[in-house]
C-alpha cells in the first residue's frame, strides 16, 4: 500500500496478473482496429479484459495534431478485470502528438514503443514539443523501444507493389506483431482474420501479413526480449460456452431486440444521431433482425413522439439519445407518462452541461432522469453496470415497461457505449419471456381502469373492434379516461401515477452484495463505475478492511431494501461521476449519514483515486 496516496503519479499495481496496453496515433492510423485485435487475442485465451477507446474530439483533424489523436486501451489478465486500468503498462505511440497526449497515462517505468520515423521536425513542432522528446531526456525512467517503424514497414511490404502511402498504412500491423510477440502470442489468428477480411490473394492481405510478421520478428531479434514486461499470460478459467467481446452499445441493441422478441412485439428504435448514442441505432440498422427496425427522425422530439406512436399502435417504441437530445425529449416523455404507454428511453450520458464534452462519460443526468419534467411525472430509471450488463438491463426494461405500462429510462454513458468485455453469448430461448397482452374485447371498457396489483391500465391496439377510445395529455378521469378538471380526481391520479412507479421497487429488491452483508464500509455505486469500485473493494478487502459493495441497477424507484442493507454497515460511501446526485437522493431518507466521492472530469474513475479518497474518509473517522 502506498503511504502517500496524494502523489499524482503513484501507481498502485492492482494485481500481478494484468497488463494494460494503450495504442495511440492519428485517427487514420488504425489504433482502434489494432486494439481490437489484441483484445480478441486476449479474449480467446479466456482472460478477463476491459477496454477503453478514447476519441478526443468529434472531428477528424489534420494528421499529426494533438487534437487528432485517437487511442485505445485494453487491460487483460487473470483475476478481477473490471476496469480498463488506471495507467498503461505499455504505450504504443505512432507519432509525437500521440506521445504527448498519452505519456501521462503510462506508469513510471512503463514501456513506450515509438515510431521514430515520425519524429521529424515538422511532426515534433505540430505536437507542440520544442525538442525531440526521444532525445531530450524527457522519457527517462521509462523503457523505450524506438524504431523507425515507418521505414521498417515500408521495407517489409515493398514487394507487394503498394505505394509509399498505402505501404505505411501497415504500420499498425507491424506494431501488433511486436506486441503479440511480447505476450508470447503467435500471429496465426490475425493472419487468418486478414485473409478473411481482404481475401487470400489481395495484396493488402499479403502486405499486412508481411508487416505483422516483420514486427514480430523485430521483437524477437532485438534485446527487448528479456524485458520484465514479457509475461507469460496464464490461462484463466471462465464459464464454458461460446464467447465474444461486446460493447455496451451492442449489448443494448441485443438486449432491446431480445426483450422485444420475448414480449412478442415489433420494435422500432426512433432516434436522431448524436454522440455517443448513435452506435445503438447503427448496430440495430445493420443487424436486420426480424421485426426490429429503426427510424431516423428529423429531431429528438419527433423521435420520442414517433416512439410513443409505435407503442400506441401496439409495437415497442424505443428512443435513444444523449445530453442535449434527452433534454429535448422532456415534454414528450411527460405525455407518455400521462397516457401510460410503455416506452424505452436510452440515455447514453455524456459529460457537461449543454454541448459539453460529447465523447466523454459522466453520470450527471440522474436527477434529470428522475425529476426533469414539469408536473409530478414519475418514471422508472435503470442503469447497467458494465457493457455486458447492458444486455440484461435493456431486456428487463422492456419487461417493466409493458408490465406496468410506463416509460423506463436507461442511463448508459459514453464509457459503457464504447468499452467492451467478454460475454458468454446467452441462449435467449432460456431467458424469461413476457409476451405482451393486449386487451381484446371488454364489455364497457374503461381506458384507465387498472390492474389492482400492478396499477397498470390495459394496452389496447387500435384496430381492435369495440374498444375504440380516446387518450391524451390533459388530466383524465381515473376510470373512464375522459378529460376531467375535478380537483379530487387530479389528486387521485397524481397519487396513482406515483404509486404505480413506487411499486416497481419490488422488481429490484434483489440487490447483490459484493462482499459480506455487514461490515465497516459499504460502497454504493451505480452504472458504469462498477469496474473501478469492484476493484478498489477487492484491494481494500485484501488489506483487511471490512468492505462491501453494491452497484444499483434501479435508481428510481429506490428499493425499500436499501435502508436495511445500509444499516448493517458503519459507514456508507456513495461513489459517482457527478456532483453527488445519488448521494443527495439517498440522504433524504435512506442514508442520511452517507459520504460522497465524486469526480466530474469526463474520465472513468481510477482505482488509485478511489482508494485514496476512501482511505481519507476512513481517516477522518467513519
Amino acid at each position, binding site marked *: 500500500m502506498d503511504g502517500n496516496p496524494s502523489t499524482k503519479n503513484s501507481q498502485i499495481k492492482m494485481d500481478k496478473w494484468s497488463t494494460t496496453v494503450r495504442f495511440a496515433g492519428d485517427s487514420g492510423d488504425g489504433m482502434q482496429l489494432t486494439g481490437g485485435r489484441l483484445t480478441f487475442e486476449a479474449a480467446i485465451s479466456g482472460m478477463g479484459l476491459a477496454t477503453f477507446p478514447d476519441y478526443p474530439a468529434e472531428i477528424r483533424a489534420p494528421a499529426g495534431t494533438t487534437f487528432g489523436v485517437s487511442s485505445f486501451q485494453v487491460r487483460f489478465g487473470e483475476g478481477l478485470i473490471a476496469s480498463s486500468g488506471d495507467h498503461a503498462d505499455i504505450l504504443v505511440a505512432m507519432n509525437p502528438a500521440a506521445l504527448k497526449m498519452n505519456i501521462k497515462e503510462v506508469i513510471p517505468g512503463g514501456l513506450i514503443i515509438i515510431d521514430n520515423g515520425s519524429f521529424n521536425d515538422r511532426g515534433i513542432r505540430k505536437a507542440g514539443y520544442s525538442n525531440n522528446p526521444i532525445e531530450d531526456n524527457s522519457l527517462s525512467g521509462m523503457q523505450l523501444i524506438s524504431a523507425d517503424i515507418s521505414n521498417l514497414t515500408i521495407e517489409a511490404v515493398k514487394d507487394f507493389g503498394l505505394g509509399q502511402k498505402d505501404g505505411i498504412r501497415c504500420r499498425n500491423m507491424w506494431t501488433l506483431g511486436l506486441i503479440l510477440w511480447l505476450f508470447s502470442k503467435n500471429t496465426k489468428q490475425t493472419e487468418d482474420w486478414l485473409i478473411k477480411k481482404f481475401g487470400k490473394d489481395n495484396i493488402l492481405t499479403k502486405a499486412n501479413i508481411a508487416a505483422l510478421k516483420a514486427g514480430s520478428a523485430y521483437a524477437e531479434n532485438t534485446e527487448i526480449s528479456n524485458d520484465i514486461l514479457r509475461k507469460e499470460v496464464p490461462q484463466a478459467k471462465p464459464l464454458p460456452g461460446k464467447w465474444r467481446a461486446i460493447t455496451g452499445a451492442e449489448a443494448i441493441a441485443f438486449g432491446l431486440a431480445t426483450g422485444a*422478441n420475448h414480449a412478442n412485439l415489433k420494435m422500432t428504435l426512433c432516434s436522431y444521431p448524436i454522440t455517443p448514442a448513435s452506435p445503438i441505432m447503427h448496430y440495430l440498422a445493420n443487424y436486420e433482425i426480424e421485426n426490429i427496425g429503426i427510424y431516423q*427522425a428529423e429531431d429528438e422530439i*419527433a423521435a420520442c413522439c414517433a416512439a410513443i406512436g*409505435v407503442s400506441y*399502435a401496439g409495437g415497442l417504441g424505443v428512443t435513444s439519445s444523449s445530453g442535449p437530445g434527452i433534454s429535448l425529449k422532456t415534454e414528450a416523455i411527460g405525455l407518455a407518462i400521462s397516457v401510460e404507454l410503455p416506452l424505452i428511453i436510452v440515455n447514453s450520458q455524456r459529460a457537461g452541461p449543454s454541448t459539453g464534452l460529447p465523447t466523454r462519460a459522466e453520470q450527471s443526468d440522474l436527477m434529470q432522469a428522475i425529476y426533469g419534467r414539469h408536473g409530478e411525472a414519475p418514471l422508472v430509471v435503470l442503469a447497467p453496470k458494465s457493457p455486458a450488463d447492458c444486455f440484461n438491463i435493456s431486456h428487463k426494461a422492456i419487461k417493466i415497461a409493458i408490465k406496468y405500462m410506463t416509460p423506463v429510462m436507461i442511463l448508459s454513458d459514453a464509457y459503457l457505449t464504447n468499452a467492451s468485455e467478454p460475454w458468454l453469448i446467452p441462449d435467449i430461448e432460456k431467458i424469461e419471456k413476457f409476451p405482451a397482452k393486449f386487451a381484446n374485447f371488454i364489455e364497457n371498457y374503461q381506458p384507465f381502469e387498472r390492474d389492482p396489483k400492478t396499477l397498470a391500465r390495459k394496452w389496447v*391496439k387500435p384496430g381492435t373492434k*369495440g374498444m375504440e377510445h*380516446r387518450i*391524451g395529455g390533459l388530466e383524465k378521469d381515473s376510470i373512464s379516461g375522459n378529460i376531467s378538471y375535478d380537483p379530487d380526481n387530479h389528486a387521485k391520479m397524481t397519487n396513482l401515477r406515483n404509486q404505480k412507479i413506487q411499486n416497481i421497487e419490488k422488481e429490484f429488491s434483489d440487490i447483490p452484495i459484493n462482499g459480506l452483508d455487514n461490515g465497516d464500509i459499504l460502497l454504493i455505486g451505480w452504472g458504469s463505475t462498477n469496474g473501478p469500485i469492484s476493484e478498489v473493494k477487492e484491494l481494500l478487502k485484501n488489506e483487511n478492511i471490512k468492505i462491501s459493495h453494491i452497484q444499483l441497477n434501479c435508481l428510481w424507484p429506490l428499493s425499500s431494501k436499501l435502508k436495511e442493507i445500509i444499516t448493517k454497515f458503519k459507514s456508507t460511501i456513495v461513489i459517482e461521476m457527478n456532483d453527488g446526485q445519488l448521494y443527495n437522493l439517498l440522504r433524504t431518507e435512506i442514508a442520511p449519514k452517507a459520504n460522497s466521492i465524486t469526480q466530474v472530469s469526463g474520465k472513468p474513475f481510477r482505482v488509485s483515486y478511489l482508494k485514496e479518497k476512501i482511505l481519507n474518509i476512513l481517516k477522518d473517522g467513519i
Partner: protein
Amino acid sequence: MGINEKPAQLKPNDYASDQEVRWCPGCGDYAILNAVKRTLADHQADKANTVFVSGIGCSSRLPYYMSTYGFHTIHGRAPAFATGIKITNPELDVWVITGDGDSLSIGGNHFIHLFRRNLNCQILLFNNEIYGLTKGQASPASRTGTISPSTPKGSLESPLSACELALSSGATFVARGVDTAIKQLVPTLSKAKEHSGTALVEIFQNCIVYNDNVFNSFTEKSAAIERQIHLENGKPMLFGEDNTKGLSLSADHSKLEVIDLKINKKEESKILIHDESNKIIAYLLSQMNQSTMPIALGVLYSTEKPTLDSYYTHRIEEHKNKISNIMEKGQTWTI
C-alpha cells in the same frame, strides 16, 4: 375499407363519441366535424381501424368527438406520432388534425417532414389564422396587420401559406376547402382519404371569437361565386357567374391572371386546363393574391410517390435475421 364492408350502414352520427362537443357556439369546427363524419360514413369506414391524431388547439380537440380511436398528443407533434403509428400498423387509417398554430408555428418542422416522407395519412389543417385555444394571438398564418393580444398595433410578419410550404416539402396531395361549404368539403376529404401518401387539406375555418369573418371576402354567400374557383382535374379553370371567368398564366410566367370571357372571349384558349400533376401551376394557385384573385379550392395538386409506411414495412419484411445468429456473428471463441 371499401364501401359496404359492413352489413349495417353507419350514419355520420355513428362516428360521434359520447363526449359533449365543447367548441364555442358558431365555431367553424362544428361544420368540419360534420364533414369528417359524413366522409367516414360515405366510405363506411371501419371505426376500429380509424385513428384521429391531433396536437393541441381548439381544432385538436376533434378526436374526443369521434367514436374511433383517438390520440390528443402535444402541441405541434401530431405528425411524429402519426408516423410511429403508421410504421407499426400501416393498415390503420390515420387522420392528423391540426391548427395553423399547431402545424405552421411550433410544428412546422414535423409538418414539412411529413410531406417529405409521404406518410400515408390525411392531415386536416384547420386554418383560422389565429391561435384559438390560447385566446387569440396572431399565428404564422395571420395576415400582416392582425390585431391580437400579442400584436396590439397589428402584426408585422408575413403569413406562411400552408399549401405552398407543403408543395415545397414534397407533398403529393394538396387541397383546400371551406368549413361551411360541406358540399365541396366532403368530396375533397374523400379524395384525401383515397390518396396514397400524405394528403393535406387546408380548411378555412371561422373562429367567431378571435378572428371572426376573416375569410368573408370569399366565403360570404354574395362573394363566393366571384371569389372562389373550384378546381376539377382536366377541366378548364373557370369561375364566376355562369363560369365566365378563367385563369391564365401571365406573359412573364410569374403569376396567374383572370380572363373575363364576357369582355375577352377571344382569349378563351389561354385559359388553363387544371392538371393536378403540375406542381408549378399548383404553386401559382396556392399563391394567388387574395385581394385581386379568387381563392383556389378543391385539389390543387396530386401525384403518386411511394409512401413511408409502405417502404418502411417492406424493409422490415426483408429483415430475416435471428437474434442469436447476429449475436454469434463475428469473432467468437468457445470455452
